[in-house]
């Protein structure tokens, strides 16, 4: 298959070949998707029976693209007398403007055919190649081709129409086209989707004719305003400016408006397959973006609060007070064959919810929201003690109750082998991973601050602080690996320390649970050759049993992980180390044209010279997109204290000057300036990079 081209609007998106065609199979993830359902699996353009060949593709905006094509699929370009332009924009389905230009001095008569079909596959079916249980139907009526699927009361339809006269049959549209010399012919094609998925429909699916002009201008205006509202960055390092611009636009594309909060946006997890509400991803990304776009945090808090767990439901791994993991809208969820309505199998989202609520208030001063979510925050805090203590020892742990379709690993490192002993053995369940205890500690401390300052409940604040102090004391005793001088990645139910050295230690610094006396040893590990590659901190240290530089959570480097590690290092005063991590990841960003991938290989920087991308299907990914934003915060040392924004820059040498202007917050708007004074082992800037060397290696 040719290169994939993706455009999207919220959770409606199109993935096609680079000639604009869609030819999906059950296992091939191309097509028009909306609400986790494929609404078009075949969309193939031919002229006189011939396929078209791409000359170029212009990604105009994230929701709009233009394909320049010529007839014939040969590899050699023949001086074509015809050229074809398909301009496609997503919005409530999609709109395609098909234009044919005749460059000849003779008129032409052409048969233009668009083949259309749909399998109405659920994303889960595409992933697992499952068979459909309902019935398909197709019809032509009232100038529209209708493709449909029905299973009991579940009905999904795709309706296709054109502005120019055409013959329609159940397999597509045929146009008899006559074009005069040097003239053009054009038609608008509308692909509308009918979905009950949003829950907003009455008896029949709703048909939205994607209004060509309206949809596009709304999206354009929205993007323009979004970029204008964010702080502006100026700096003498062009690469950083590019990365910042890219991050803002990508974050705009990743915005997702939940059905119950129309007009409000939260960050979805990844484009295109994870354009939905995720507890963990939405919270982490909102935290990263707080100094730039605090509205994301606000919507995340409100939406996750509305869907907070309220009962015991084993299928959905739901408990009272628990924050959801993932919401889905496809057929398998609709028939309760998958638990995502929503699914609650995440164990970190709940404490992180309280962390985000507090951080949001510190930046925005929006006490009103904190008051309105008091009940939710209290329920989240209660969940930590009442439902998460699966080992019965006062630590958060996870073990799924839905053993068929639930998630086995409910922390961010959710692959099967991510949690291991130094010698590679895997621990049993329930698992109490270390970073969870940090999040719990932070949630209690921050909950205490909110209780004291906003909810006016000092007794509750005292209780939370006492519990936090107790948790910190026990944690530093029970998780500390004495012979390694770091924290174990997890505890077994019998109290054994799962003693691998992993990047989770950095999240512990961020949470504040690390004893001051132990912080230096932890920071030293994070910056050691075993963990720091020159690009960033590996998920698992080199030398551990399961270390693999291209293992998903056992050796790769995650930009998101590193952004929180840098924040943690700053929290404990390790400014230079934080700057070094920022420099490495931001250097890597240049290789990806400012768009950081989910993860890249943990190879030594000196070995590969460039960051080796880990192959994943989602790009951009929300928390990778948010990473440069958080790095800007940590490099500039931005910290809201009371009504003020403190700026305490620690920038790598390679950045001469950095200005972040109009940072919004409870202070109104403020500017931050910094100059690069931290020696991160940089050589003279090469190819636009800061050129961080590993500690201990020679400077060039």
């Amino acid at each position: 298959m040719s290169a994939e081209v993706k455009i999207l609007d919220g959770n409606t998106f199109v993935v096609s070949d680079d000639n604009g065609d869609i030819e999906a199979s059950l296992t091939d993830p191309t097509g028009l998707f909306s609400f986790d359902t494929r609404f078009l699996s075949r969309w193939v353009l031919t002229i006189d029976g011939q396929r078209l060949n791409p000359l170029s593709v212009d990604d105009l905006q994230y929701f709009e693209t233009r394909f320049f094509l010529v007839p014939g699929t040969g590899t050699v370009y023949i001086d074509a007398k015809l050229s074809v332009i398909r301009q496609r924009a997503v919005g409530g389905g999609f709109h395609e403007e098909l234009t044919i230009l005749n460059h000849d001095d003779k008129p032409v008569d052409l048969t233009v055919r668009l083949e259309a079909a749909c399998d109405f596959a659920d994303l889960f079916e595409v992933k697992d190649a499952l068979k459909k249980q309902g019935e398909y139907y197709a019809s032509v009526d009232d100038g529209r081709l209708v493709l449909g699927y029905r299973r009991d009361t579940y009905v999904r339809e795709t309706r296709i129409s054109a502005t120019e006269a055409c013959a329609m049959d159940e397999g597509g549209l045929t146009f008899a086209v006559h074009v005069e010399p040097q003239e053009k012919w054009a038609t608008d094609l509308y692909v509308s989707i009918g979905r009950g998925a949003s829950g907003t429909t009455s008896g029949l699916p709703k048909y939205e004719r994607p209004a060509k002009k309206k949809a596009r201008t709304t999206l354009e205006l929205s993007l323009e305003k979004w970029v204008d509202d964010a702080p502006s960055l100026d700096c003498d390092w062009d690469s950083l400016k590019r990365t910042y611009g890219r991050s803002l636009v990508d974050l705009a594309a990743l915005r997702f408006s939940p059905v119950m909060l129309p007009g409000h946006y939260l960050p979805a997890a990844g484009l295109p397959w994870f354009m939905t509400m995720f507890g963990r991803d939405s919270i982490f990304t909102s935290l990263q973006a707080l100094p730039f776009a605090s509205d994301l945090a606000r919507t995340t808090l409100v939406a996750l609060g509305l869907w907070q767990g309220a009962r015991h439901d084993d299928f959905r791994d739901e408990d009272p007070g628990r924050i959801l993991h993932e919401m889905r809208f496809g057929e398998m969820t609709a028939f309760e064959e998958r638990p995502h309505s929503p699914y609650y199998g995440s164990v970190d989202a709940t404490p992180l919810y309280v962390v985000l609520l507090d951080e949001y208030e510190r930046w925005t001063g929006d006490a009103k929201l904190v008051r309105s979510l008091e009940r939710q925050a209290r329920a989240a805090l209660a969940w930590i003690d009442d439902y998460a203590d699966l080992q019965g020892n006062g630590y958060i742990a996870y073990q799924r109750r839905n053993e068929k379709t639930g998630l086995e690993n409910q922390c961010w490192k959710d692959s099967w082998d991510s949690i291991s002993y130094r010698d590679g053995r895997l621990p049993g369940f329930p698992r109490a991973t270390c970073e969870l205890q940090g999040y719990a500690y932070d949630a209690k401390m921050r909950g205490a601050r909110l209780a004291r300052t906003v909810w006016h409940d000092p007794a509750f604040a005292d209780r939370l602080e006492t519990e936090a102090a107790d948790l910190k004391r026990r944690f530093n005793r029970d998780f500390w690996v004495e012979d390694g001088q770091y924290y174990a990645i997890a505890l077994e139910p019998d109290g054994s320390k799962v003693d691998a050295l992993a990047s989770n230690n950095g999240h512990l610094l961020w949470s504040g649970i690390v004893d001051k006396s132990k912080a230096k040893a932890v920071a030293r590990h994070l910056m050691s050759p075993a963990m720091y590659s020159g690009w960033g901190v590996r998920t698992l240290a080199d030398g551990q049993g399961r270390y693999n530089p291209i293992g998903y959570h056992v050796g790769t480097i995650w930009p998101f992980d590193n952004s929180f590690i840098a924040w943690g290092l700053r929290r404990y005063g390790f400014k230079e180390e934080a700057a070094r991590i920022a420099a490495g990841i931001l250097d890597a960003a240049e290789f990806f044209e400012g768009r950081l991938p989910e993860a890249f290989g943990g190879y030594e920087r000196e070995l590969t010279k460039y960051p080796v991308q880990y192959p994943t299907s989602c790009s951009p990914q929300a928390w990778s997109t948010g990473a440069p934003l958080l790095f800007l915060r940590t490099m500039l040392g931005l910290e809201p204290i009371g009504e003020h924004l403190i700026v305490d820059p620690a920038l790598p040498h390679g950045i001469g000057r950095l200005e972040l202007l109009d940072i919004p917050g409870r202070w109104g708007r403020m500017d931050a300036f910094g100059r690069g004074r931290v020696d991160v082992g940089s050589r003279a800037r090469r190819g636009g990079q800061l050129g961080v060397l590993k500690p201990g290696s020679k400077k060039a």
Partner: protein
Amino acid sequence: MAELDVGLLEALEERSREHPVPAVDGVVLFDVRDGDRVDEWYVTMKKGIVTVARKGGEPDCVLTGGRATFDAVLSGRANAVAALLRGAFNAQGKIILLSALQQLFPGSPGIDGLPAAGYAERQS
């Protein structure tokens, strides 16, 4: 056919007094269909507390569905969101009210071989 079990609706009121739902105020009309028969219940949400009545003013949101679907959802045998997605329920109006209200619907019974609540007793 019998109408919707009033006990299931009263249970909503009771649960909201024990565990108030997110404070979104408004009225949801349960439009319960059973053959030709239409049953209407006005579910009023105020400051997280729910009251159910036969009569009411203009609803902010209308939830339409068969009696069997209402019965299954209100007794925990089916999930409300899934029912909406598959068209067994249809909703019009302010969906945010349903997001809050669904917190009061009972959860599904335990999966075979698993306890209804799989968490350990906390040791002090």
